[in-house]
């Protein structure tokens, strides 16, 4: 039930090689881990999971599930034989089948099909809904049916494609924790694709960052947050300002290189003592309830946006940050 997933040198292109979707991606997921794949749209995340599920054929590289070679240039195990489960972005529930039939659909053992399905529905909290049809359910309920359907055949790897993108914020937060509690309970190795890093940070053991079809970083959540390897990775996890020459002068923080430092907007403090400080003129305030967003103009004319919960009076303020919060990249 728990399996390792091994991807080596995976590449895939479309339109006779004109569009490169994935280039030389290599990584490994430990049994029982939840791995999030994060990237902008077009970064190749969907292609990656479709390749793992067997819905596309790779151009080069290999995919192993629990030491079985499932895809290479010479071999392609059909999706139905890969023992992979998948929850699709828009759930892809079969509209003409009832909830129970949807869940029963993938179960192989003939004897206790119905029992297994009912158990799984119970697990996702949908007891009593088995006779309904998909269009009679709310978005969150459909999501759970989709999860139950994917889990019922007890796959060794579970793939989730943007599982929460169709839900509103409240539902999303609740369901996210529920879903991953269930997944953790079953112990299945899971890969999930998201463009929302909050999801990834909240539930993933490991996060994998894709940019233009290339794997740019793979790390545990906290490590990734604290030490992103590029400004791209850093900006995926919240607004980030690159410390260019102008900002370095304004804050009087001479750094060695020009290009490879940045500071998260949330690390910038207002009216507090810091390692590096600067005066700024407030151009615009936006009230956001517990916070205010300020558009600032620095001495040297650079513009900057900061968010603060401190009450701010007057037209000028003092802003600053500490050297420990400066992000440095290898590039």
């Amino acid at each position, binding site marked *: 039930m728990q399996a390792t997933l091994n991807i080596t040198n995976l590449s895939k292109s479309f339109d006779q090689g004109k569009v490169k979707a994935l280039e030389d991606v290599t990584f490994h997921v430990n049994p029982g881990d939840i791995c999030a794949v994060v990237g902008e749209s077009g970064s190749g995340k969907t292609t990656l999971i479709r390749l793992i599920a*067997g819905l596309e054929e790779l151009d080069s590289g290999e995919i192993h599930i629990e030491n079985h070679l499932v895809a290479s240039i010479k071999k392609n195990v059909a999706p*139905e034989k890969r023992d992979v489960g998948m929850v699709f972005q828009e759930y*892809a529930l*079969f509209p003409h089948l009832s909830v129970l039939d949807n869940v029963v659909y993938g179960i192989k053992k003939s004897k206790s099909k119905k029992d297994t399905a009912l158990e799984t529905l119970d697990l996702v909290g949908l007891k009593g809904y088995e006779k309904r049809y998909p269009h009679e359910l709310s978005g969150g309920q459909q999501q759970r049916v989709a999860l139950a359907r994917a889990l019922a055949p007890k796959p060794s790897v579970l793939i989730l494609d943007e599982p929460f993108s169709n839900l509103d914020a409240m539902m999303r937060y609740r369901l996210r924790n529920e879903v991953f509690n269930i997944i953790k309970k079953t112990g299945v190795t899971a890969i999930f694709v998201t463009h929302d890093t909050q999801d990834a940070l909240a539930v993933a053991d490991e996060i994998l960052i894709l940019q233009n079809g290339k794997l740019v970083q793979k790390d545990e959540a906290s490590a990734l947050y604290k030490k992103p390897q590029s400004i791209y990775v850093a900006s995926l996890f919240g607004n980030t300002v690159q410390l260019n020459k102008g900002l370095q002068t304004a804050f009087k923080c001479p750094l060695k290189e020009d290009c490879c430092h940045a500071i998260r907007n949330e690390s910038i403090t207002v009216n507090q003592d810091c390692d590096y400080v600067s005066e700024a003129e407030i151009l615009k305030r936006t009230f956001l309830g517990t916070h205010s967003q300020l558009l600032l103009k620095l001495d040297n004319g650079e513009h900057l946006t900061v968010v603060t919960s401190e009450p701010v009076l007057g037209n000028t303020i003092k802003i600053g940050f500490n050297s420990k919060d400066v992000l440095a990249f290898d590039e």
Partner: protein
Amino acid sequence: MNLKNRFFKLKRDLNRWSLLLLLILGIVSVPILTIGFKLFGGPGESWNHIVDYVLFDYLKNSFLLALFCSVIVILFGVTTAWLVSRFEFPFRKQLEWLLILPLSVPAYIMAYAYAGVFGYSGLFSKLMEFFGNGDFRIEVMNIYGLSLILSISLFPYVYVSSRTFFLAQATNLLEASRMLGISEFKSFFKLIFPLARPAILAGLVLVLMEVLNDYGAASYYGVSTFTTGIFRSWFSLGEPETAIYLSAILLLIVFGLILFEKWQRRHLNFTAAKTSKQNYNSRIKPKKANQVWFSVICFVPVFLGFVLPVIQLLIWLKQTFASVWTVEFISVTLESFGIAFLTASITVLFALLLLFFTKWNKIELLKSSSKLGVLGYAIPGIIIAIGVLIPSLYLDKWLIEKNITSKLILNATLIALVYAYVVRFLAVAYQPLESSSLKIDRSLSDSSKVLGKGNFKTFFKIEFPLIRVGMLSAFILVFIDILKELPLTLIMKPYDVNTLAVKAFEYASDEMVSSAALPSLLIILTALIPAIFLNKLLLKNASNS
């Protein structure tokens, strides 16, 4: 990618579906290839004569015919489809299905009927006499009349395809457009017409193939087109080789049309990919005066394409019924029905296999060439007949030589006839199937596969129930087409099987057009039932999506 990897990939991706796809493609393209092979023999000796004296005429007339028909068909088909799907007016519900009826009248019958109505002491001149203007006449037996007649008998193809589009997808966009302060009429030209283009063109390609293929109406009206030229060079000049050369040119033109249609919708895949989840649209109720106008506008093509020809046929029927009617007509009707039913089922099956084998096959090159399988629709029935007869006779002779059989088992039996029909009408079945399968979200079949079901199980459990409506409309369209089909049937049917179309032809070719009224009306009647059924399906489908 280097050659070795290409080879490995090919070997990996070559599954049994690719082979089966090749097999299906092979089966349906044998006649076409046979004809293609004949091209190597060179044209007949009159080829130069044809190029010098008549080819330009054929090209010009066929082009004009296609042009006029496109304009009229779009005018009738799109306008009526838009009106019935967007507005509420008197008799809308009835008109909605009445507009499909012209499909049930074969074009050649329509041509005879119109010649009768506007000809010597026909309905029209009687009407004019009544108004005291007896000398006023409208000449329909020319290229303009022919365009009109072909258009009104074929516009339902465009009506059906664009109405499906309007019902399924246009509502949200139109509402958005109206919120932006753009009137319904303006939105139609700015928004709906461009968006509906792929749907309209899909219908139009079918219409144009039929127009280019028409023989009966064109020859009666004295318009020399490519197809009449094919018949002429074959039968009057006695040069089948030349006829085959001409058909090859025709085939190239149609192939160009198909490529054009594919090309023009290369960016428009979104229209097919997703249907709006909005419920059935609410229709606008225009002003009273406009409502009447809309009813009238929608009734015009119904009148021209159905009521008028049927009235003429009924007048003829009254004159000839006593002499023409025999009990035999009951069994001929049943036979026509049975053949059409059997063949339509097989054709739909082939179209399904072609569609899904293409989908399951993983080799790109094969995927893109599967459209070749539907070219048969563009080839005149008589040429298809030759393409089928040559290989099947060859096989028959071989079987006899090997003492496996003692007589012809393929030819002059239903096998060869049904085969020829399948080759000819595959396109008609393929089109609605393809569009309805495109409407299914890809992730549905993907998730079935991930859940451990193979292609076959996925098809039966998921895709089949969801494309049932598309399958039925494919079936009905082919059914109607086969009921009307003539040249193929004439040459390939078994001795003791008779169809209504053949009966109608026998009378008409002997210049006893009025006696052809009975079989013609029976064709219309037999085709009517599924046409109405088709409409019910379309409506049900639209309200479900």
